């Protein structure tokens, strides 16, 4: 979003349908969860108002802090691997012809598999006796075991996520690249710009919009990852791959503590919100600094 845009309050009419669609499913559930989080629900008829008691209890929970740290480490790893890989992939995908169609479809396949199937496939795929990945690693002499070794389990979940979600980054960047007018490349050719210069000063700035979405999406989705590690490792070995979401589900479904689970959900939500907000503003600033540098330099 650039700085100088005409003020037009009537634009609200254009965004009204969106607000109605989203608010319909957003506001009441959120209020209900806030309502749960300040009550001790003993039975549907007996509820006691407990104020911020659950929030304090959740904040003091040591297991939660462990899960939070694991979660942050995982999400950072996801971003560090998937964003550059996705950009590189988008740059190397053919732009036209039948190859482009074939590559697009192949790249998109992993996104379309339901998440519980993703976990199940990798569960078999990683087994050293009957799975291709596990058998290959074992044949190469690694003592690979995603159920026994915490590091292996963590890496397997990460590789699975890279396999599963890098295409999202790649497709967004690919579409972003295709939306760059040819005139820019022609100008660069006249200037005799190197490939790297074209990437740094034309492609990367033009990809800013899609990269922003890709980073935020990958961040928030990986921060809420649940189904795949749950199916693959069940959070183990020990709690090496127990991420926040799984911990929350244990609380909400396993122990049936609606009050603390609701308080946990809200804290969880606020953490994601805060981190996304920081990421968003940081990327906005980087982009703006970039633009003013290009204008003055």
């Amino acid at each position, binding site marked *: 979003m650039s700085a100088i845009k005409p003020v037009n309050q009537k634009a609200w009419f254009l965004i009204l349908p969106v*607000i109605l*669609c989203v608010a319909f499913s957003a506001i009441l559930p959120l209020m209900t969860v806030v309502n749960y989080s300040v009550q001790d629900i003993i039975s549907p008829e007996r509820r006691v108002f407990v104020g911020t008691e659950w929030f304090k209890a959740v904040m003091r929970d040591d297991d939660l802090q462990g899960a939070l740290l694991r979660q942050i480490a995982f999400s950072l790893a996801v971003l560090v691997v998937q964003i550059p890989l996705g950009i590189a992939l988008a740059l190397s995908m053919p732009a036209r012809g039948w190859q482009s169609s074939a590559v697009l479809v192949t790249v998109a396949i992993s996104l379309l598999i*339901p998440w519980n199937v993703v976990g199940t496939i990798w569960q078999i795929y990683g087994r050293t006796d009957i799975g291709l990945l596990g058998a290959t690693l074992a044949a190469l002499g690694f003592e690979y075991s995603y159920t026994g070794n915490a590091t292996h389990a963590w890496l397997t979940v990460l590789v699975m996520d890279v396999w599963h979600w890098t295409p999202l980054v790649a497709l967004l960047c690919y579409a972003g690249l295709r939306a*760059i007018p040819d005139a820019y490349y022609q100008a660069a050719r006249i200037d005799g710009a190197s490939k790297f210069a074209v990437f740094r000063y034309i492609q990367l700035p033009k990809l800013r919009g899609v990269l922003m979405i890709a980073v935020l999406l990958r961040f928030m989705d990986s921060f*809420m990852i649940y189904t795949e590690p749950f199916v693959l490792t069940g959070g183990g070995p020990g709690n090496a791959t127990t991420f926040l979401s799984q911990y929350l589900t244990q609380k909400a479904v396993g122990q049936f503590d609606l009050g603390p689970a609701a308080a946990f959900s809200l804290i969880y939500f606020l953490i994601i919100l805060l981190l*996304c907000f920081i990421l968003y503003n940081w990327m906005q600033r980087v982009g703006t600094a970039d633009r003013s540098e290009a204008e003055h330099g």
Partner: protein
Amino acid sequence: MAKRFEKRSIFLALYLVFAILPVYWMVNMSLRTNEEILSAFSLWPRAITFEHYLTIFTDASWYSGYINSMIYVVINTVISLLVALPAAYAFSRYSFLGDKHVFFWLLTNRMTPPAVFLLPFFQLYTTLGLMDTHIAVAMAHLLFNVPLAVWILEGFMSGIPREIDETAYIDGYSFPRFFLTIFIPLIKAGVGVAAFFCFMFSWVELLMARTLTSVDAKPIVATMTRTVSASGMDWGVLAAAGVLTIVPGAIVIWFVRNYIAKGFAMGRV
């Protein structure tokens, strides 16, 4: 130049192998009996069997899952794009009271961890009498798809210089005509990607879809969780169902591929 091109191709080929192998393993599993899957390592099915696919195509509780999913996913994608296109245009072209806040608020709706929110969702849609209908799932999925579509489209629209709008007005185009015949073709790539992502996220979403349906609108992803129970795990059927869930999405991306691949470069400007 040629050397560089080669490097790129090798990288791409390596990635494609990495991408395709787990999928191949799934196809491989879907063509073998459960005993064969669990008994020995094999690069290809020794005795090909289609029993798992037959199970899915002959059992109504299986194939109706695909139909139900298709119905609500299509409703959801169409509504998402229709409401998101004008909104994204407003965000990319005008400033108005609270624009930045609304824009960010939209995305916050994707940030709620689902586990606890499912219960109020259930209550809300029960109160409205929409339980176990396709429209309920389609509406619930708008919560995360509309913000996504708005953000993607806004990103692409902001890349189009505003002079194009102004030139069109000077040329005497009305707003709807300008929007449909000039502007949307310019952001084809964005529309294609947004449509595919809306389709994809709605297609694979499990928790909400399962909570809001029981029989009449039960989606395929919920039917699939059934394979885990009873007499252990039915690996083969699950793999076959997984292979079949790829098909509709692959068709969708096949249709939108021209939008994504050509985009602006081949447009009219």
